[in-house]
C-alpha cells in the first residue's frame, strides 16, 4: 500500500516537472471520478458491513466444513455475496480447512469471494454498465465452479 503511494507520488512529481497544466487536469480528472463513485462506494461498504456483522466465523465453520454437495453450494453462495478482504478470508479459510472443509469447498469459497461480487454489483455497473456487470459476474461464478472442480481433481 505504501508502494502505491510512492508510485503515485513519483508519477505526480514527474508530471508536475514536465507540465503543470496537464498535471492539474489529471488531478481534477481523478478527483471528479472519485467524487462520481464515492457515494455509491460508501453505500456498498455500509451494506457489506451490515451483512458481514450478521455472519460469524462460527456460523461459517458450521456451514462450510464437512462433505457432500451442501457445503460446496453454500461456499459458492456465501463467497459470491460476501466481500471479505484477503487478510481476513485466508486465516478463515485456514481454520475451515482444519475443521474438515474440502479442497473444492475452499477453492469455491475463495474464488467466488475474489471474482464474484453481488453486493458490489451497483458499483461495478456504475463503472462498466449493468450489462457488463451482470455478464461478468455470471461468468465468474461459472468460472469459480470450474476452478473448484479442477482443484478437486488436481489436489487430493
Amino acid at each position, binding site marked *: 500500500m505504501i508502494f502505491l503511494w510512492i508510485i503515485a507520488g513519483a*508519477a505526480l512529481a514527474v508530471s508536475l516537472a514536465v507540465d503543470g497544466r496537464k498535471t492539474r487536469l489529471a488531478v481534477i480528472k481523478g478527483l471528479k471520478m472519485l467524487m462520481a463513485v464515492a457515494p455509491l462506494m460508501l*453505500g456498498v461498504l455500509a451494506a457489506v458491513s451490515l451483512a458481514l456483522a450478521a455472519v460469524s466465523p462460527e456460523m461459517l465453520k458450521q456451514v462450510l466444513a464437512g462433505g457432500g454437495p451442501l457445503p460446496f453450494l453454500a461456499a459458492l453462495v456465501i463467497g459470491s455475496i460476501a466481500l471479505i478482504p484477503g487478510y481476513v478470508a485466508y486465516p478463515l479459510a485456514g481454520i475451515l480447512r482444519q475443521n474438515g472443509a474440502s479442497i473444492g469447498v475452499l477453492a469455491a469459497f475463495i474464488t467466488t469471494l475474489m471474482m464474484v461480487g453481488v453486493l*458490489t454489483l451497483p458499483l461495478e455497473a456504475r463503472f462498466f454498465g449493468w450489462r*457488463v456487470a451482470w455478464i461478468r459476474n455470471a461468468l465468474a461464478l461459472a468460472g469459480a465452479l470450474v476452478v473448484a472442480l479442477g482443484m478437486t481433481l488436481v489436489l487430493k
Partner: protein
Amino acid sequence: MIPNRRGLFRAVARAWPWLLLAMVAVLYGFARIKGGFAYGLAAGKNLADFLLEMAAILPPVFLLVGLFDVWIPREVVERYAGRRSGLKAVPWMILLAMLQAGPIYVAFPFAVSLWRKGCAPRNVFIYLGAFSALKIPMLTFEVTFLGWRFSLARTAVTIPVFILLAVLMERLLPAQYEPPRLEEPSAR
C-alpha cells in the same frame, strides 16, 4: 404520473447509500450507549475498517488513473493492448494486475480508463481477473494459511479459466460497446 415515479426512483437511487451509512452509524451509536449489542459494534467496526482501507488506497489509485488518462496517448494503449494486439498483451496485463493491492472495486477505475483508451475488452477482463485472483499481497496470505500446494494449484487452474472467460466476455459484448462516462463530459 410517470415522471413523478421516475423522480421517486431517482431520489431513492441517490439516497440509499446515505441511508445505509446512517443506519450503521445509528446501530453503532446505540451499541456504544446501551452496550451489549454486539451486532451494532461489529457493523460499525467493519465499516471503520473498510473506510480506512479506502482512505489508504483510493487517493493514489485515482491520482494514477487521472495521470494515466492525461499522459498516455490512445495509440499506445491500442498498439500494446488493443483488439489487434494479439497474445503478447496477456502476460503484461497479468503482471500489471499482480503488482497491485486491494479489493476488486479498486481495479475498476483503471480498467475503465484502459477500455476507453482502446484496450481490447478481453484484455480489460484479463486484467480484472488477474487482479481479483493473483495479486501478490494476497498470494502471500494464501501461501501462509493454505500452503504452497494449494496456492500453486489454484493459480494454475485459475489463469486459463479467467483468460477464457475474458475472451468469452469480449465475444458476448457488441463490438462498439463503451463503458458509461463517469465524470461529466469535460475538456478532453
